[in-house]
């Protein structure tokens, strides 16, 4: 069974979805979903350890050898992402029992968990596959289940948010398919490694440049690259808390991962990127994202929306590192995938606790939260410190590498930008501190924390924010390995 782990990584959550549809009862649905997520996490950790010990693992689906068949390829970069996605999926599950029961109507709870398993399977499949079109298939599996998950939120605005995300997301996926169609027409292959090898021999550069443009815009829509981010604040604000947590930590990160794979392992080895200012464009857009979105976050009336805009700004940090593209900046970018994933996971888990106990996350109703929910407020402050990038938290490690990368390149305006972004983050985290600790609580408010099944995942996530800042073997260490792989051209 051990040599089939790459296939099982996707098959276990994928098969649990129809099983949940057959079982129908909410308790059984949650149990199957939890077991599937924990199994997926165990498989991801096993794969990561194997890759660290022996190098890239290649698995031929259906025993058809690549490039004729679909190949599942686990190397340092994909193992890194698998652990992140499966880890967040598993962490959120114990929390989900009470949270989903409170936010989703009971006769739809089993459908929620079925869609959740499909989303996890789709994201894991996107990460692990080594075939261009297979990425599209899993992208659409995860996107369609995401649209349903968002639409299951309370209130009618969730429906509109899901519809807007559907339109934008489908345009993004369509552009991605156009891009890989052009690559297929030019090279005749659909395997990442094979396309990279054949692309260097291609004479006609125009289709390759068109493919680069379409893939960038298509994936940019999915990863909420500024200014293609308009769907994100509504989708995160009106979805159920579990969905916001899972999406904020994983969905955009996996699209960044696919984009990184394309830039460094498919287009970079060929001559296609010579003279095309992809890095400069990414840096410009990321700079706009960091400053503009952080400023917009400061003025939001609702806590969830504030953190949603903050997510767009943090994705700007990740794409900034991609644009600068030297070793330190790339390490910072990849480490930030995990660091930001863990930070936002903690933040939205805590906000979900507030939703369970109070229902409203607007700043007007959060007055005195420090007295009503002391542990929750403390957790939000710690995770907020990680968002700012205070030393000894996870956010600091990636920002350090980004600043180092920008300094190495001599772009001091980027260093100033990164510091400015952190200062604006202080502003919006301070808004929460001010409302929670310095505003008087409404009369008669007792201490009412969420139940233990929710508090333990929250505590684990917040602890990870600090632990990953102090023991960087996973986030930075693995990121370094992945960067060696990327800059070495896939060896």
């Amino acid at each position, binding site marked *: 069974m051990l040599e089939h782990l790459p*296939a*099982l990584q996707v098959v276990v959550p994928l*098969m649990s979805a*129809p099983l949940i*549809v057959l079982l129908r009862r909410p308790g059984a649905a949650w149990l199957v979903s939890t077991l599937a997520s924990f199994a997926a996490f165990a498989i991801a950790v096993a794969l990561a350890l194997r890759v660290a010990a022996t190098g890239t693992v290649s698995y031929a*689906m259906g*025993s058809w050898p690549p490039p004729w068949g679909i190949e599942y390829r686990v190397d340092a970069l994909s193992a890194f992402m698998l652990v992140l996605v499966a880890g967040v999926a598993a962490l959120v599950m114990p929390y989900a029992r009470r949270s989903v029961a409170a936010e989703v109507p009971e006769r739809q709870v089993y459908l929620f968990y079925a869609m959740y398993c499909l989303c996890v399977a789709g994201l894991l499949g996107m990460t692990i596959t080594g075939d261009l079109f297979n990425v599209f298939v899993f992208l659409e599996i995860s996107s369609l289940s995401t649209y349903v998950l968002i639409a299951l939120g309370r209130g009618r605005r969730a429906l509109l948010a899901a519809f807007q995300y559907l339109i934008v997301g489908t345009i993004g996926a369509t552009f991605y398919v156009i891009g890989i169609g052009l690559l297929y027409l030019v090279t005749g292959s659909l395997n990442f490694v094979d396309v990279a090898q054949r692309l260097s021999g291609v004479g006609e550069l125009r289709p390759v440049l068109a493919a680069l443009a379409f893939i960038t815009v298509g994936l940019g829509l999915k990863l909420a690259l500024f200014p293609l981010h308009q769907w994100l604040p509504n989708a995160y604000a009106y979805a159920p808390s579990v969905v916001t947590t899972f999406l904020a930590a994983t969905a955009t990160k996996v699209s960044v991962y696919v984009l990184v794979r394309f830039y460094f392992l498919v287009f970079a080895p060929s001559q296609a990127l010579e003279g095309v200012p992809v890095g400069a464009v990414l840096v410009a857009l990321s700079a706009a994202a960091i400053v503009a979105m952080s400023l917009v976050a400061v003025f939001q009336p609702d806590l969830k929306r504030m953190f949603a805009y903050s997510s767009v700004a943090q994705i700007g940090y990740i794409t900034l590192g991609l644009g600068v593209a030297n070793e330190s900046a790339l390490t910072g970018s990849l480490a930030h995938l995990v660091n930001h994933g863990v930070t936002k996971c903690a933040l939205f888990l805590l906000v979900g606790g507030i939703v369970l106990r109070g229902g409203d996350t607007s700043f007007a109703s959060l007055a005195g939260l420090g007295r009503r929910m002391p542990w929750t407020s403390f957790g939000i402050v710690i995770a907020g410190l990680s968002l700012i990038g205070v030393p000894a938290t996870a956010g600091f490690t990636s920002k350090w590498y980004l600043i180092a990368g920008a300094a190495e390149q001599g772009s001091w305006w980027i260093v100033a930008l990164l510091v400015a972004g952190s200062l604006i983050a202080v502003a919006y985290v301070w808004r929460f501190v001010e409302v929670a600790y310095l505003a008087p609580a409404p009369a008669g408010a007792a201490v009412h924390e969420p139940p233990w099944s929710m508090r333990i995942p929250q505590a684990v996530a917040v602890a990870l924010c600090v632990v990953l800042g102090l023991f960087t073997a996973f986030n930075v260490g693995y990121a370094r390995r992945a960067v060696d792989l990327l800059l070495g051209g896939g060896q």
Partner: protein
Amino acid sequence: MKNDLVLRVVAKLFMPFMLLFALYVQFHGELGPGGGFQAGVIVAAAVILYAIVFGLPAARRLVPDAIVESMMAIGVLIYAGVGVAGLLMGGAYLDYFVLDRDPVHGQERGIFWVEVGVAITVSSVMLKIFSMFASRGHDPDE
């Protein structure tokens, strides 16, 4: 529409031919245009024709809701199950070569069962989509 004689008779006459044609398309997928998705859609179209002419409650008596929902899940499980069968027989996931002593015949077997799974899922999904849209506004709790 169920009071119109021509529509009633023609719908009842057409249904068995449509179902037979769906089976033909299903099993000839490897030799000509066809396969699981196309066959599933034609099966669903047959039942939807019945539903349009005779009304949704009559179609629900013909194919109960619980069966339709279970079929969706069972089709996916059949497809994934073929993959697991490949694993258990010693090959990779979704390996058809090991499903029979002769690898070529194993390919035929694998494709046959996979297409059966696809047809079951697609027909039930199409029917479910139709009945969900058609019953909107009639069931107060949907």
